[in-house]
């Protein structure tokens, strides 16, 4: 399933849950794990000064410093690295999202694994300079699936017996479906195809009547059937469901109800917005809230 995994880590607690999953997967699939850390963000014009992400100190980066950080990471993950794991540790300087994507372009992994937001740990000034978060940018531009683990509850990758696939019928969702189907076939597990009908807040112009809602649900179910069922038939067990509400909440609830071990969704929105609303907010909300790992797919 996965041969080469790029695990982008802050090498701080924010990435601990993701680390557990990363090492689990690497062992389970005998995959090569590329542990990648962006140690600092360039600062001070053209100079060599970077702000170290972990210590927050301004440092002049040279080979010694890079080697030192590499050693630190080896120590941090020492317990996981034992017993013949195939891994590589690589350290870089730059804006994290850009460098992760650069690394992915070089190494062509079949999965990128990201940890949670380091927002609380570090609200550095550089974040304001370029729109969006690392997650948004990586998920938007990555050419392979991106697995994100933020909560401890989500940090388990064991025998996956149930996958929830959330669709909004976009082109990107079709791609995500392909991937979900492949995973379900490989792992021989259940696949739950789910769509959430967005019932916007009370402030919206017109409240939908319950009849309207139910009518729409029936319509969407027909779409799901037409679009996915022929291919789903290759699976032993699958379900199709449409619920109404706030999409990300419904997906999280649905995944909980179906005891899903993994959620797969498309991260398809095109434009990156400066503020935190907007772009792929459903996937992002699901990522922060879900009780299992979430894979975002884009192409």
């Amino acid at each position, binding site marked *: 399933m996965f041969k080469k995994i790029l695990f982008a880590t802050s090498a701080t607690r924010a990435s601990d849950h993701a680390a557990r999953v990363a090492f689990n997967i690497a062992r389970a699939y005998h995959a090569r794990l590329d542990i990648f850390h962006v140690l600092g963000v*360039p*600062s*001070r*014009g*053209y*100079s*060599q*000064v970077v702000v170290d992400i972990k210590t927050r100190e301004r440092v*002049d980066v*040279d*080979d*010694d*410093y890079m080697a030192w950080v590499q050693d630190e990471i080896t120590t941090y993950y020492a317990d996981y690295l034992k017993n013949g794991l195939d891994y590589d540790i690589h350290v870089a300087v*730059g*804006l994290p999202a*850009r460098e992760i*994507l*650069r690394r992915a*372009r070089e190494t062509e992994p079949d999965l990128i694994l990201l940890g949670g937001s380091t927002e609380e740990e570090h609200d550095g*000034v*550089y974040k*304001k*300079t*370029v*729109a969006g978060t690392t997650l948004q940018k990586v998920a938007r*531009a990555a050419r392979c699936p991106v697995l994100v683990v933020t909560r401890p509850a989500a940090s388990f990758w064991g025998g996956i017996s149930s996958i929830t696939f959330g669709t909004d019928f*976009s*082109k990107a969702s079709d791609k995500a479906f392909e991937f979900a189907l492949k995973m379900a076939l490989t792992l021989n597990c259940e696949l739950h195809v789910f769509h959430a009908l967005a019932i916007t807040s009370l402030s919206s112009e017109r409240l939908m009547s319950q009849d309207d809602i139910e009518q729409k649900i029936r319509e969407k179910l027909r779409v799901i059937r037409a679009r996915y069922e022929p291919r789903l038939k290759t699976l032993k067990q699958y379900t199709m469901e449409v619920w109404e509400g706030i999409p990300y909440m419904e997906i999280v609830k649905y995944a909980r109800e179906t005891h899903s071990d993994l959620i797969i969704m498309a991260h398809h929105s*095109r*434009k990156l917005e*400066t503020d935190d609303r907007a772009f792929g907010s459903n996937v992002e909300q699901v990522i922060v809230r879900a009780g299992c790992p979430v894979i975002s797919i884009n*192409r």
Partner: protein
Amino acid sequence: MPEGTYCNKKPINTPEEVNFLLSDSSGTKYYEEMTRLDVDTELLVSTIEKTMKTRLKTWLEICAHCGMCADSCFLYQVNGKDPKQVPAYKIQSTLGEIVKRKGKVTNAFMRHAMEVAWAQCTCCNRCGMYCPHGIDTGIMFGYLRGLLYQQGFVPWELKIGAGMHRAYRAQMDVTDADFVETFEWMVEEYEDDYPGLTVPVDVEDADIFYTVNAREVKHYPEDLAEAAVLFHAAGENWTIASKGWEQTSLAMFAGDWAACKMQVESVYGAMERLKPKRMVGTECGHAHRATVIEGPYWAGRPDGRPPVESIHYVEWLAQALESGKLKIDPDKRIQEPVTLQDSCNYIRNHGLKKATRTIMQHIVAPGYFIEMSPNKEHNYCCGGGGGFNGIGVFRKQRNRALLTKRDQILATGAQLVIAPCHNCWDAIRDLEEEYEIGIRWSFLKPLIIKMLVVPDHMKPEE
């Protein structure tokens, strides 16, 4: 000790030499060795004889010590009006003394001159506008930097920066292959959103030859994609060059005259090879000064102009907006108080204030654009110009220098600062980090892209 291992008079020319100097973190050994570096008086005198022309000699002599330049200098103002920060004093006590003493100056004097040349003047040339004799201290400091560089008295980062230009023809360790590869990568990343997006490489006879700042390639490659998107949206016939693509010149900040020439000749070489109608440079101030204003003289061009018409990004953008090549969605214009940083290098020194104001009219909803005071050609330096931003050993002085810009921005009440210049952008970024006044800052490209009316041929499917 005449010459140190790290600190010496020899320029660095190869990637290996660059790396060697970089290995001395923060230049600790470099500056230590500098305290023992000999001054080559003979070389100093012969260089002055050969290179110090009438203009500079006259300026040194006719200064009436009237003090009109004092208040024009933001460093004088921000340092408690210290008389030692008066531009006339600063140059008379350094370059003036070297000339007066016929080059017989000490190591300590040269180190002091280095501090004055790089930490007490950003070569913003504002004082030149206020001098009744038209004496431009900024120009003179540029000259003094050349003398100091030749003697090995140059800040560590700038010795490296100039070395980068010699080794890579770029201000950072970005090779020609890296540049083209990165541009192509960015276009790949954006082509789903903007169908038909390409990056034409080495196309001859194009209407536009686009040049960049190596930092965009190294750290902010989105900027390359954004440039491509806007050229594409405007329907321009444009190209980049696989050689001679770097427009900036840290060599100019360093006073490495030979490297200045090498660097600008590589860009002019691309112009001559590709024969574009004109060159458009990225949103950078000193790059424009180096390649368009001063470069022709370094390269010895008789007409004082680059081989083809060369304009700043803001000029291209203003023309594209005025001619309707680029259309802005009026609903998406900036609708919050916003101010604009005038870059010394192309506003005061090249008169482009109208271009940036035209852009503001197109992209800011009426009533939201607030000028800084003073502005246009009278605007103050961002606080990090002339290489000041990157010099670690003068960081304290640089941070103090940011106060002028901080207060100017605060007085506008705007939280968004448009800074179409890499140096200004960096300084404003740093001032937010130092003083936390709650502002955001941006180049023009990302702002324009957000409010662009995307032509039909560029709309994605779906």
